[in-house]
């Protein structure tokens, strides 16, 4: 991949219906020596979400955490938004939570994460919008693009639910429209401590 890839400080990922399966494929593809942080919003019914760490930690090369308010953002860690809170990147940068009303019928909302990350990371951000019903994430993707970040959308035909990727693509001309397979290769090509 080209030169901009080398300065990625964070990857933000948004997913809804079908998201667990999609994430179970792409997150384990991240190398253990990744030099960027990974922030994930996944819509889930409230009770199910706290199992995320148990599901993903054993399968990933990077430590997986559910966010506690004002957590520092460590390179080489995967952070999940906790159930029923919005997740935002705050100045510092650190992670912040909010109980503001749902956005696009969602809390956590993908757009809230993407927009706040775009404001802090600007061009050093990679945003990935995956499968899901609804249209959460589309306006966030636009914010990422405006701030100069890189946008990736899962190919709607490859998504269990195409609506979220389609809504994203209706809003922006994404840098890449990829299958999960391609996203896995992209992740493996991202910068890591050994070869920054």
């Amino acid at each position, binding site marked *: 991949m080209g030169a901009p890839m080398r300065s990625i400080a964070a990857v933000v990922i948004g997913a809804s219906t079908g998201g667990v399966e999609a994430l179970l494929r792409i997150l384990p593809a991240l190398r253990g020596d990744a030099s960027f942080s990974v922030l994930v919003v996944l819509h889930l019914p409230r009770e199910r979400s706290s199992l995320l760490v148990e599901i993903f930690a054993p399968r990933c090369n990077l430590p997986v955490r559910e966010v506690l*308010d004002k957590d520092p953002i460590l390179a080489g860690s995967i952070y999940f938004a906790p159930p029923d809170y919005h997740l935002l990147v705050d100045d510092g940068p650190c992670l912040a939570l909010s109980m503001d009303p749902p956005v696009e019928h969602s809390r956590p909302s993908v757009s809230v994460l993407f927009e706040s990350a775009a404001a802090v990371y600007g061009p050093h951000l990679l945003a990935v919008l995956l499968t899901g019903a609804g249209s959460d994430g589309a306006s966030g993707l636009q914010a990422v693009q405006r701030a100069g970040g890189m946008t990736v959308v899962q190919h709607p035909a490859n998504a269990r639910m195409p609506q979220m990727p389609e809504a994203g693509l209706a809003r922006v001309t994404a840098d890449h429209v990829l299958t999960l397979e391609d996203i896995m290769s992209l992740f493996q090509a991202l910068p890591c401590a050994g070869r920054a």
Partner: protein
Amino acid sequence: MNAVPPPSVDDVELRLLVEAIYHVYHYDFRSYARASLRRRMGAAMAHFGCRSLSELQGRLLREADVFTELLEYLTVQVSDLFRDPGYFRALREKVVPLLRTYPSLKIWIAGCSTGEEAYSMAILLREEGLLDRSLIYATDINPSALRRAEAGVFDAAKVPDFTANHRRSGGRSSLSDYYSAAYDRVIFDKRLRRHIVFSDHSLATDSVFAEVQLVSCRNVLIYFNRELQSRALDLFYEALCRKGFLGIGLRESLRFSSHADSFAEFAREDRIYQKVDG
């Protein structure tokens, strides 16, 4: 990679706006978490039809009405009765037995919003037979939220969720014993209300006003940066009696408090702490 861009025009404008609010209206949002503030100011700009925060600031400085409206954007009024039932269950099963040993009880609900947490606490204390010797101070900075809390009127559509939460919190009575229904509203019983004092108090600028046995401050600290969280936690430390209890939101922590070591985990999963000596 430490790739943090220099402050943008938006950032500078936001900083100036909160300074202006502080100087003119004495509400201090200077140490609030920026990201949420930025989002909510975006919504406020759309509401007021302003193209920039500077334009909004201009109107704010000249029109007091604008500030009253803006305050609804600056603070977020979201709450539920018995929100996180497990928290109230832990209070009931683990904290109440110790609260019983006090001849009279004072409890501080900080950031009470429209009153749900205060009414939940009053109902819990009534069920445990402690309400008659209790006084609940419920404080917030949003005057319209405090007025709604005082009225004790809630949307009837929320009652099924409230009832389910109350049941899951270990509630022994029927929630309907505590309110009367009127059209699409329910009104909480004056006998609960008598034990609650709602008042204006800011964790950012005010000081301690009473000694209490329990502080419950949930989902308020998340809106603060680390320094302001530390200030708020100092107030709670000061307000609490020896061996008093502090409950916070499920995804909040005490780690930025200078007194973090003076609080022992009491009900870990439910984020309830006890003040210890030292």
